[in-house]
């Protein structure tokens, strides 16, 4: 029956029941700051998580076989035998010798020109790609196989030397998740305090509304709506700033050209998760406000 304008006017009138402007003082700004920090922490956590995952996906399935033999002929023979054995072995997807010239190139900065002279014995290297799954067991099996061929053959899973780094990164990721959780708690607490303050400073109005027969839910809705709006504005502000900062950092990371740092990129799915944070923040603020005011109202007659 009621027209849309009617309903809008009614909503406006309900809003007017509380005075205009902020009901909860500086809460908006506090929420903006909290949301800014939360989004940054979450982005760090998500970025690190993505980096760890891409790193382990890249590395877990790979291993290097070194042929540590000073005699070049023996070394080449041994490398060839190892290659055949590896290609025939279970769990090996591919095995390819690393070009000695490439190897020399890579060590030149450390060892100088002699590295290429052939006087310095460089090990031959074979890149091994394992079939997916249970890399540790496969590497162990290959180690036994190669050990049977010659003690000069050594296999080294790639993940092994990056393991401490991956561990560090994932620990940082969890730390970030913890920070996000603490921020959520702190935001809730700020809203509870703000709602309590708003309730106290409008005690007179609330009492009159009560005596006119307003229900607790009717009154709580006034506060919850206003605090929710403040939270919405604060969250949007905080999120916008955080997104700006994250994009900047992303550009700087890209500019380093480092593969490792480059991996710390936010995939689109992570952006979606970050986008949910302000929504969750507003929801949290609204619920906290409602709960607080209802509790406070419950103490009056």
């Amino acid at each position: 029956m009621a027209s849309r304008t009617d309903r809008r006017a009614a909503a406006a009138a309900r809003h007017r029941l509380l005075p205009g402007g902020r009901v909860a003082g500086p809460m908006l700004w506090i929420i903006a700051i909290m949301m800014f920090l939360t989004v940054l922490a979450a982005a760090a956590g998500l970025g690190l998580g993505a980096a760890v995952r891409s790193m382990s996906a890249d590395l877990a399935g790979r291993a290097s076989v070194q042929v540590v033999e000073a005699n070049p002929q023996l070394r080449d023979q041994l490398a060839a035998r190892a290659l055949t054995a590896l290609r025939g072995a279970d769990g090996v997807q591919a095995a390819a010798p690393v070009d000695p010239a490439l190897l020399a190139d890579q060590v030149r900065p450390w060892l100088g020109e002699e590295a290429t002279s052939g006087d310095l014995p460089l090990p031959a290297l074979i890149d091994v790609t394992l079939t997916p799954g249970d890399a540790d067991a496969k590497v162990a099996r290959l180690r036994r196989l190669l050990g049977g061929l010659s003690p000069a053959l050594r296999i080294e899973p790639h993940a092994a030397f990056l393991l401490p780094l991956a561990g560090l990164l994932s620990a940082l990721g969890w730390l970030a998740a913890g920070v996000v959780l603490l921020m959520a708690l702190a935001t809730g607490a700020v809203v509870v305090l703000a709602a309590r303050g708003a309730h106290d400073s409008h005690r007179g109005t609330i009492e009159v509304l009560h005596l006119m027969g307003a229900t607790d839910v009717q009154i709580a809705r006034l506060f919850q709506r206003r605090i929710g709006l403040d939270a919405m504005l604060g969250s949007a502000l905080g999120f916008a700033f955080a997104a700006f900062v994250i994009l900047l950092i992303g550009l700087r990371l890209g500019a380093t050209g480092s593969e490792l740092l480059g991996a710390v990129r936010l995939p689109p799915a992570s952006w979606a998760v970050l986008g949910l944070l302000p929504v969750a923040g507003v929801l949290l603020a609204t619920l906290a406000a409602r709960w607080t005011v209802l509790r406070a109202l419950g103490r009056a007659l």
Partner: protein
Amino acid sequence: MRAGLYGCLPTVPWLSLRGSRERASAIFQDMSAIVQFENVGLRYGLDSETLSDVSFTLAGGGFYFLTGASGAGKTSLLKLLYLAQRPSRGVIRLFGEDVVTLPRKRLPGFRRRIGVVFQDFRLVPHLSAYDNIALPLRVAGMEEGEVDAPVTEMLGWVGLGDRGQARPATLSGGEQQRVAIARAVIGRPEILVADEPTGNVDADMARRLMTLFEALNRLGTTIVVATHDLPLIAQVSGAQMMRLDKGRLADPTGSLRYPPRPQGGE
């Protein structure tokens, strides 16, 4: 009924005797007790009792005055009546139901049936006179489109037609009081409780307001007015008087209490 009420307001409003016979008979059928106090006591904190052994019955449709010296407990008694306070002892029944043990969540339903003029007005400071008067209608969930007509009429009736957008702070004491009265009666409450409703207005306006109360009373509302103003009481014929003395209901003549009208006895 509601539309009719507002419709007849601006002219010689509710005073018209048209239809009063039917209404009167409706009221007399409704003469049952609408308010019952039995041995009610009220104690604030650890002080001695502010109200002691208060027992009375108000009939539906009656017009009652409550008098007594300052500090006798008039406001305290009215607070019990409009459910702002629970008694320390005794039984209070409103509309036939015990409200002392009423669960909190049922109070709003009862409060909406009672209009209150507070001694200190309690206008919402940030709302205009118009919005203050509209408050009970909005709390009751009336559609916004239906609010305007009665509020505008009510403003006109209390002589504030051109002050609708004024904030309470910019109104005189008497004007604030009239806003408070308009707010109390606009919802057509079944019981109207008014605490010193004419304390801040001149004799003319006091008479006008009493006329409003009488008109409301004729439509079936039970009126309870606390006042010091004895000439005012004399003005309303057929009204009953209760007197509080140091927290006890004094009844020196015995004729001032329930039943309110000789012809309306139970």
